[in-house]
Each structure stands twice: as structure tokens, then as C-alpha cells.
């Protein structure tokens, strides 16, 4: 679709290599238990495993049967003997108190048990499978639990995993020349990686990735809580994309069964609409449908020879396209229906008002009614968190009343959820006196800043006393609302939120890359709680290779997850600047996943 594309964007490195590495290691480990054996796989690992190996590969290496590890007795085909390998995540590593090693993601337990001799033998090995390429430019650590573990519980069990992931990328696609980052966890991950680099040996090679940007999810919690309106994000919000794969319900497929579809750049139709604002998708799809019709219609006037060429050359492609097209049309239609039902329009309006800091009372009564009517619990919680994040906390009276109503509508046990949200800072009460401190610090700063205009601006903003607001102004995150925003020709990253908001995370990345560091962003980092850094890799002075393509390939690592909308925004930014972004994330997230991980209402 119509974008101002810079032609000279560099090629992305080939990440299928990562899959091959993981597969080769798996095979090597399987062969440590010679002979025929069964493979027991932990449920969460099945989808990722499917992405790197298939049954044929496993069979070739003497794997007999595959089982899912469940919380029940294991039944082998043989009465007398179990020979098998268990693929087990290290998440609950404390079961192996002596195999403490976060570095390795999965454990292989080789088990040999023979009942007739009562002989039992178990050995362990670690399979370092922690990077799964989901697409040409997305690599996932498939660690959805990262967010809760680190940001809520304060458990650093995944920090070294993140460091090792960087280490692996660095040794395969590096050496990186510069690393920027913000956030406590980013800093630790960087440290861990640096140590691993020092431990290992270095090889001189041609770098394929130039710079790296690390960012903690809690630097920007607003963005993942916004409703996604870019196609891929919307599909994820509604149907939930899992491991790059989505299951479309019968409603979409207009048949009686649901089908699983891989969503990535291989899907030509999807590839063209994934980054588009939803409102632009229909136009595109109907144009496509028309073209398809024309292509098929060509047949009518053909002679036998032409028909033959048509069938052999074009038909397959057309059929494929037809299938894809009808699928995405079905999905769009189904999403439209769902969104119409729940007054999406009004919901978006409320969100945009919150982002703009406009008519907050109206927003609160909208949220209140949302709660009162017992509409989706997670959605109510999302709005409450957005309110708190954008307003720097709720007024005590609002907090109390909204919390009480929430508990009435969705169950009192959510007291526990509220305590989690508070702990993480997603939903908090304004502390009395906070106003004063904010005022003091701001005024104190402004004394040096003699511009009168800025002073009044600051004073009017004092009423709002929010870091988000201040950040928004500082970084121009919320474009002026008196201009039309043409979604057909997006002019900035705000298009991913209908022109209402530029995601803070992506804006930071843009700014830091532009400035080649954090200089000039001191006030911003102060409001974000600091922990920013920019390091140039020691020996490999960057000046020599500034011109090479690799310098225009930037790896962005999100610790705690990132959304498809953010990926779309970065792709947009990349097109504008003639660079390519590779997103490495602990998991793909969205508002629902993020908030569900905060729930504590189950035993």
C-alpha cells in the first residue's frame, strides 16, 4: 500500500539459522540416549517445537512415540521398560534444586527404567532453546511468564536467559557496535550478556546487526494497554495469535470447522495488510477481490494453449491468493461484528480522551458504567489501569469507589488482583502530598528556565500532575487534535492508534537512535525513572563500518513483551528512515495477556 518507502533498506539476516542450531542440539541430546525411545514433551513446548522440528526428524533419530507430559501417570507401550527423554522447561526449576541454571531453557531428562531389574537411571542435560524466530523480523523467547515473574514478583530468574539470548545473537549475527537501553532489567540483561561475552572466545566476523536497543516493559505500560487497531494487532486482540499461528473459528472460515493458520510474511495477503490501520483494510481487500475476479475472468476468452499456460502458471497462485483472501475477509467481517456489538467506537473515544487528558470525568463515568454493566472484566481493568497510568494515579475517592464497584461486579476475591496491580504500579491511588512534591520539583527546575511561556505551560499542567502527560508533551506523543489525520497516508507512528497517540516505547527508540544516545533526553529519562545507558562495544570501533548495511539493522529487545502494534510502528519507522528493525521479545503480548497475568482469583 502507499507508503513512502526508502529503497535502500538493508536485507534482514537469516534467522532460520537459529532454528537449525536448536534442532541440531536437540538431536545431539536425543542421541545421548542411544536406541529407540519415547519423547515426552511438556505441553507449552509443543508449539515452539513444531516450529523447529517435525516428526520425521525425530523418527530419524530413534524417537518412537511422542507424548505430552501431563499431571498423570506415564504409560509406555512396553510393560517392562521405559526409555525416554523428557523435554521440560526450567520454569519450575526448583524441582531440580541442583540443576539450577537459568541459562538453559529446557531440560532433557533421559530416563531409563526397567521394572524387571528395578533399575532406574535418570540423567539430565540442558537444551538451550531460547530463541524462536516467529517471522523475518520477530524473534520470541516464548516466555509469557516473564512479565509477572520479573515486574510483579521481582524474581530475576529470566535475566540470565535474556542475557544468553543476546549472547547467542551477538555471536551469530554480531558483533554489535552499540547498545542502548533503558530500565533496570535491561541493564542487568546487558551485564549478564557482557559477562558471557568475556567468558567466551571472540571471533572476528562480518556483523549482520549493528546496534541494539534494550527496553523494559514497565518503561511504557500505556502502549500495551491500548486497544489495537492495526490489523495484526486486532487479530491478536480478538483471536489470539499463538506462536505465530492463529486459530480461526468457523465464524471466520464460513465452514463447520476452525482452521489454524500461520500468520507471517509468507502469507502474501496478510503481509500487505498486517501493518495497516483496520479502516484501510477493507478497501485493500475489495480491490484484491476485484483483481482476482479479473484474473479468473481472463479464462473465458482463452484458447486451449493459453488455458494450459494459465493452469500451469497462474492458477495455483490464484487459488492460493483466493484462499488467503477469503480467509482475511472472513476475519475482518467477524472482527467488525464483534466490535460493533460492544460499542467499540465509544470505547476508543474514551481511550483517546484518557491519552489526551481530556474530559476525564466523562471517562470515569464511562468506566464506571462499564463496570456496572459487568461487561468484560479484563476490559474494565484495562480502562482503570489506563486511567491510573495517564493520570498518575486515581484520586483517593475515585479509587475507593471504582474499586468497590469493581469488586461488586466481578467478585470480591479480586482484592488480590488489586493488590497486584498496585504493587506493579498499574493501578494506584494518588498519595496525598504528591501534588506538592511534583509542583516543587517542577517549579524548582523552571526557575532556571526563564521562558515565561514554558512557565505557564508547566503551571497549567500542574493540575494534571502526571508523568505521562509531561512525557507526552515533551515527546509530542499526542498530536494536536485540531488537525485531520489521514490514515491512508500515515505521517507518523501515531497511525497505529488512529492518529491519537505515538507509542512511547517506539518514540524513545526513535529519539535515541536519532541522537545516537540519551543526550538531550535527560528530563525524559528522569521522568522514566532513569536506568538508561548507551555503550559502544570496546574494540570494534564503530567508525570504520558506519557505512555498512549492518549499521542500519537495529535489534530491539523488549523485556516483558511487546505488542504487534509496536512492531507495526517500528516497521513504519524503519521504512521512513531506511533502516530495518528486528524485534526480540520475551513474548508477544497485548492488554489481555498482560492483565490476565495479574489476576489472582483462582486457587
Amino acid at each position, binding site marked *: 500500500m502507499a507508503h513512502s518507502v526508502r529503497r535502500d533498506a538493508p536485507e534482514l539476516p537469516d534467522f532460520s539459522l537459529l532454528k537449525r542450531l536448536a534442532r541440531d542440539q536437540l538431536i545431539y541430546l536425543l542421541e545421548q540416549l542411544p536406541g529407540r525411545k519415547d519423547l515426552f514433551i511438556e505441553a507449552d513446548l*509443543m508449539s515452539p517445537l*513444531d516450529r523447529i522440528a*517435525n516428526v520425521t526428524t525425530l523418527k530419524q533419530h530413534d524417537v518412537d512415540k*511422542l507424548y*505430552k507430559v501431563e*499431571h498423570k*501417570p*506415564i*504409560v509406555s507401550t512396553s510393560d517392562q521398560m*521405559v526409555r525416554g527423554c523428557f523435554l521440560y522447561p*526450567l520454569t*519450575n526449576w*526448583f*524441582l531440580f534444586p*541442583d*540443576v539450577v*541454571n537459568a*541459562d538453559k531453557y529446557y531440560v532433557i*531428562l533421559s530416563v531409563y527404567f526397567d*521394572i524387571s531389574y528395578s533399575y*532406574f537411571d535418570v*540423567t*539430565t542435560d540442558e537444551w538451550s532453546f531460547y530463541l524462536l524466530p516467529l517471522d523475518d523480523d520477530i524473534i520470541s523467547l516464548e516466555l509469557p511468564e516473564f512479565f509477572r*515473574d520479573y515486574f510483579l*514478583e*521481582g*524474581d*530475576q*530468574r529470566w*535475566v*540470565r536467559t535474556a542475557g544468553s539470548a543476546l549472547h547467542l545473537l551477538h555471536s551469530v549475527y554480531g558483533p554489535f557496535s552499540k547498545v542502548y537501553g533503558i530500565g533496570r532489567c535491561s541493564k542487568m540483561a546487558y551485564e549478564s550478556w557482557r559477562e558471557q561475552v568475556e567468558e567466551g572466545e571472540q571471533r572476528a566476523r562480518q556483523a549482520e546487526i549493528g546496534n541494539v536497543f534494550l527496553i523494559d516493559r514497565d518503561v511504557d505500560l500505556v502502549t500495551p494497554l491500548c486497544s489495537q487497531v492495526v490489523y495484526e494487532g486486532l487479530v491478536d486482540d480478538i483471536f489470539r495469535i499463538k506462536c505465530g499461528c492463529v*486459530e480461526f473459528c468457523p465464524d471466520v472460515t464460513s465452514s463447520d470447522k476452525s*482452521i489454524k*493458520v500461520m500468520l507471517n510474511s509468507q*502469507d502474501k495477503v496478510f503481509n500487505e495488510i498486517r501493518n495497516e490501520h483496520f*479502516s484501510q483494510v*477493507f*478497501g485493500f481487500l*475489495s480491490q484484491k477481490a476485484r483483481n482476482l475476479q479479473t484474473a*479468473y475472468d481472463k479464462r473465458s476468452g482463452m484458447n486451449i494453449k493459453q488455458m494450459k499456460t494459465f493452469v500451469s502458471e497462474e492458477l495455483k497462485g490464484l487459488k492460493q491468493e*483466493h*484462499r488467503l483472501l*477469503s480467509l482475511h475477509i472472513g476475519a475482518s467481517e467477524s472482527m*467488525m461484528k464483534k466490535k*460493533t456489538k460492544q460499542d467499540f*467506537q*465509544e470505547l476508543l*473515544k474514551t481511550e*483517546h480522551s484518557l491519552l489526551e487528558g481530556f474530559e476525564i470525568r466523562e471517562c470515569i463515568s464511562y468506566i464506571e*458504567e462499564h463496570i456496572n*454493566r*459487568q461487561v468484560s472484566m479484563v476490559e474494565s481493568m484495562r480502562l482503570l489501569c489506563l486511567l491510573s497510568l495517564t493520570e498518575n494515579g486515581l484520586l483517593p475517592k475515585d479509587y*475507593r469507589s471504582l474499586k468497590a464497584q469493581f*469488586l*461488586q461486579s466481578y467478585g*470480591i476475591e479480586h*482484592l488480590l488482583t488489586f493488590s497486584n496491580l498496585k504493587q506493579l504500579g498499574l493501578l494506584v491511588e494518588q498519595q496525598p502530598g504528591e501534588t506538592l512534591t511534583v509542583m516543587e520539583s517542577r517549579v524548582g527546575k523552571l526557575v532556571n528556565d526563564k521562558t515565561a511561556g514554558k512557565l505557564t505551560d508547566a503551571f497549567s499542567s500542574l493540575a494534571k500532575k502526571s508523568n505521562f502527560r509531561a512525557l507526552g508533551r515533551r515527546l509530542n506523543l499526542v*498530536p494536536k*487534535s485540531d488537525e485531520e489525520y489521514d490514515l491512508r497516508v500515515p505521517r507518523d507512528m501515531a497511525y497505529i492508534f488512529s*492518529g491519537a497517540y505515538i507509542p512511547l516505547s517506539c518514540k524513545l527508540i526513535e529519539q535515541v537512535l536519532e541522537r545516537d544516545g540519551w543526550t538531550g533526553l535527560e528530563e525524559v529519562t528522569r521522568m522514566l525513572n532513569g536506568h538508561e545507558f548507551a555503550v559502544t562495544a570496546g574494540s570494534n570501533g564503530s567508525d570504520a563500518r558506519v557505512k555498512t548495511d549492518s549499521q542500519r539493522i537495529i535489534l530491539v529487545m523488549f523485556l516483558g513483551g511487546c505488542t504487534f502494534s509496536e512492531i507495526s510502528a517500528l516497521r513504519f519507522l524503519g521504512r521512513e528512515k531506511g533502516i530495518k528493525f528486528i524485534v526480540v521479545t520475551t513474548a508477544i503480548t497485548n492488554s489481555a495477556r498482560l492483565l490476565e497475568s495479574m489476576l489472582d482469583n483462582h486457587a
Partner: protein
Amino acid sequence: MMRGKPDEDDYWNSSKFKAFTFDDEDDDFTRLKESKRAVNSIRSLVEEEDEEDDVEKVSWSGEPVGSISWSVKETESSIRSTGEVRDQSFPKIHTAPSLPKNSSGYSLSSLFKGKAKTGSFQSFSESFGDPSIRNYAPELRKPKSEYKDYVSDWTPEETVKRMQQGKVYSLEKFRSLQDKLLLLDEAVNAHDGNVITAVLIYLKKSLSKEILFRELITREIALRHYIHYLKEIGEQKLLVELFKSMDRTEDMALMQYRDHLNVRDENKRRDFLKNCLSFPFSPDDATHVQDHYTLLERQIIIEANDKQVESSGQADIFKKYPRKASILNMPIITTLYYSCFYHYGESDGTFSSPANIRKTFRISDKQFLLTCLGARAKLKAWFDVDALFTTKNWLGYTKKRSPIGFHRIVDILQKNNAPVQVLQDYVNLVEDVEQKISLAQKYKCHDVIINTYRDLKDRQQLIVYRGKVEKGSSEYRKIEEILSNSQLRWKN
């Protein structure tokens, strides 16, 4: 083409956001439908040529044949039939005392559950309990080669490094408190959560809890790891003690309250909640917990009563609308809805009456109205709905009032399939004229539209509207009548 609500239009027009709506009637949607039709019409063409399609297998089918998930499902179904018998033949490893009991889905012992008859395993499981061997992980052996460089006097730094690298290590040599703390601090410095927790497990085993707690107070990061670890292995008691020793009483109270989720039996759960009332919650939370207890107590009474009434077939309402689920453990608002549905009109004195629930749980007017409206509308009790809004003033005139906008009321009624006659009464009450007309158009309340245009003296709009209604219908005739009324002074 008419679009949704006028207030939204205002918004979209006044701001930069390009109007983009999800309304059915919108252009885009129609366009989409058209493309769908177009594509579907091609389908027949495609399918007739669709004899053998290899595209399907590669990139399409739900679980591509040959995928791992598919294969696992295959094995599952094939063993289901024989599974029961085989259970017997597989021995069990006794849960070793040192392996923490936990509620998580992963545990080694859980993998090997089954009925063991052989006593010979005793010796194996006993070895779990022996701490001196356990640290070299005999049950989960590492390849022997890794033991080669084993020496026993590593510094804390070296030990942590070895732990991170997955090499063999020993913590036993850290005997004095000072050594142990040095080790812990070194682990924290290494930013590796797993190492931190591993060290904490060792400290937990080898230090008295008083000392460990005391040392953790000044070590925030280690403390959080410890708390998380205790949570995961379900050592509730110790956790409570920890919070207590640190004066984190609210955390302690919530932690204990959390346990009610594990109590399945409703009477026991009620008693548990009652017990919670004495915990040191924050004042607000204390109220909520009190509510929780009161709520469950009432639900138990209501449930017992209604179950009996329902099965005896005494009350029509239960016959007509059999209960789909028990009311136990439902939120307050759901309970109120239930009460408005099954117990409407009961006197305030009964626990199950809406008025009583409203009062007990301090439900706001707005909330009460919304819930009540939903329940009565569901039952199509339009008279009750009417009564909800009717107020009498001192002169005896009646007037409809609502704490929420009438456009909302219309919306709720419409979602409950209220007939046009009912709907239009409420559409009429919408104050904003624009909004009124757009709602009336959405729900086809012709009278409202016609009367409004008449009152606005808007002849043009009325003529336009005449074109939209069916010729000869009563609406049509009504418009004709008004248009031909020479008494009216039109503004256009």
C-alpha cells in the same frame, strides 16, 4: 446514510481522528460484504478444479500432518483405550521429603505416579533425603565428565559463576553465617534469579528462620526471591511468619485471605471467611472481606431455599426459567440480578429480596437501576421497567426520571429485545434532539421521528423521511396528514 450516535459524530469531526466506524451501515462494511460475495462466487470456480491440492497440506490445514502436536494427539488417542491397565505396571517414586510439595503442574514425582508394589524403590527414594549426597544431584545425574574438575574450596564468586554455568558445585562448605551471606550477596550481584533462589534454598535449610528473616530485611532483592519461592512451593505458614516478622501485616492478611480459594466446600469457605474478619486488613479491604463473608452466608441460604422451591415445583418462575447455575460464589451484582429475576417484589425483610441486597451491600442507585432493569427487561416485565423510572411529585403527577441517560436505557432495552412500543417511550425521553432522532431511526420508532420533525417544524426532513417509509403504511399516512396540515407553520 445515517451513522450511529450524533455525539460521536461531533467528536470525530472536531478532532483529528478520521471518522472510522464499526457500524454495520458503514460504507466499509458494505464494501467488505461485497468483496466477500465476490470472493465466494469465485469459490465455486475454484472448487471444481480442486481435485488434488498440495497447497493445503503445506501451509494450511489445522495441524499439518506430520507436525508434532498432531502426532502427540495421535499417540494420546491410541493409548487411551489401554491406559487403565497399564497404570498398574508403572512404579512410583515416593515423594521425597526434601522435594518441596507444590501446587504447580511440574514435579518429578508426578511424572511417575502409579501404584508401586515393589519395595525395592524405597532405597532410591531414601537417598533423596540425604542432604550430603543431594547436592551432587545423584538423582539427576550430570554426565560424569563434569565432575572431573571438582574441588571443594571455591570462593563465593567462583561458586556463583559455576552455578550460572551449570557446572557441579557445592554449597555445603559455606558454614558460617558470614560466609553464607557473602554467598547470597554474590548471587544477588550476579543478577541471576535462579542462583539467588538456589542459595536461598540452602540458607533456608541451614539457618534458623529468625536469622534468615532478619538478614533478608536489609536485602530487598533476595527477599523478593524468597517470597516468590515460598509462594510457588506453597509454604503459606512460613510466608505468614515472614510477613509478620517484617510488620507487613496487610500483605499477611491478604496472603491468608487468598487461601479461601482453596476451600471448595461452601460452608467451610464461609467459616474460613469469617475467620478472616479478624485479620489486619486495611480499613477498606476489611469492609470488602466483611462483604464477602456476608455475601456467601446469604448465598448459602438463598441457594438452599431456591433449590428446594425449584425441585418442589412450587414457583412458576423457576418452572418457566429454570436456574442455569447455582448462585454460590457469584459476585454481588450477579446475586442482585438473580434476586431481581427470581425474588422481585419480596419484602425488604427477606435476605433474597433486591431491596435487602441493595441495602446490605450499599449498592448505588445507578448500579441498582442498571441491574434491575436488565433482569426485568429479560423477563419482558415492561410494567416493572416502567415503574423503575416513574416518580410522583407532590401534586400527584407522574414523571419518568433516571440516574443514567435515557439513551443508555434504550440501549439496554433494545439488547433485551424490547418491542418498538416500549422502546419508543424511552426514545422519546432522550433529551438531546439529535440523539433522539438517530436512536429512533436506528430502532425504527417512526412516531418519534415524525413527531419530532413536526415539533421542529422541519418540513424538509419530514419529506425526506416520507421517502424512507413504506408507501401506504400508517407512518406514511401520518406524514401525509401532517404535511397537508395548513395550520402548521414550517420553518422551511
